[in-house]
């Protein structure tokens, strides 16, 4: 698997750097699409098909639409900045170093003794069949029943965010200067 994972990660890094450096924002949106495709296939290789599913639907699908809709409201090229921003570079380097330091004592990938495999209680896997009356998928049982209120809250948050984005990006009202008949007709047609 290594000979697939390493090129994918290299392509990911290349895409991220290019997308950050490019000045044409329309092309930058496309690089975010490429990034989503790459990271979704990487998550699939890491055996996380549900995350990959979400990344493909949200990252490559919805986020591209939203960014293009934003580009329709703003300009298509980024203003060129002068000089090297020292303070942001410093902050980013510190944060990246802290994150890498945080991964040093993490358990290895797929370690059976990792806390995430041992701690909540392995009996969830054994007892979910009886508890939830035969839902075959343990992930579904945990998400929809053991953590049902949590999932309901997440859904409410995502729904609210979607409504907010729709309110921001919706079409503007027809201009006021028209006669009333034309305005009403336009509203009826929309």
């Amino acid at each position, binding site marked *: 698997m290594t000979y697939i994972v390493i090129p994918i990660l290299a*392509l990911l890094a290349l895409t991220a750097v*290019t997308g950050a450096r490019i000045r044409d924002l*329309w092309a930058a949106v496309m690089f975010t699409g490429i990034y989503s495709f790459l990271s979704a296939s990487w998550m699939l290789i890491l055996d996380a098909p549900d995350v990959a599913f979400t990344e493909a639907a949200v990252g490559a699908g919805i986020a591209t639409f939203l960014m293009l809709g934003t580009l329709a409201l703003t300009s298509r090229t980024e203003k060129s900045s002068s000089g090297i921003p020292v303070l942001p570079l410093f902050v980013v380097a510190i944060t990246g170093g802290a994150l890498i330091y945080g991964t040093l004592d993490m358990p290895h990938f797929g370690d059976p003794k990792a806390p995430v495999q041992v701690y909540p209680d392995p009996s969830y896997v054994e007892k979910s069949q009886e508890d939830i009356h035969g839902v075959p998928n343990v992930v579904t049982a945990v998400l929809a029943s053991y953590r049902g209120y949590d999932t309901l809250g997440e859904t409410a948050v995502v729904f609210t965010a979607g409504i907010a984005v729709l309110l921001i990006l919706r*079409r503007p009202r027809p201009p006021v200067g028209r006669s009333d008949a034309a305005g009403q007709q336009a509203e009826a*047609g929309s």
Partner: protein
Amino acid sequence: MFVVTAIAILITMALALVRAMFGPTVFDRVLALNMFGTKTVLLICVVCFLTGRTDFLDLALLYSLMNFIGMVALLRFSQFGHFREEAAGN
């Protein structure tokens, strides 16, 4: 055999990425992105057969759908410059 196929697909992805970087016109970049999505679908299929978990093939179907919808949105945006409905009826 799957290994050789996977490496060939990865090389094609790298070439498409190079075209997306240097592509002078919009349509070079659109074609590069479309090709990248197609190669992702192929790579997922190859990885599925490599690991023997063919139930992930559904994901490849989802990716090709996403790729198609994204392409239509991109081309529509580059043609009209917005996503609003056409001013039909008035």
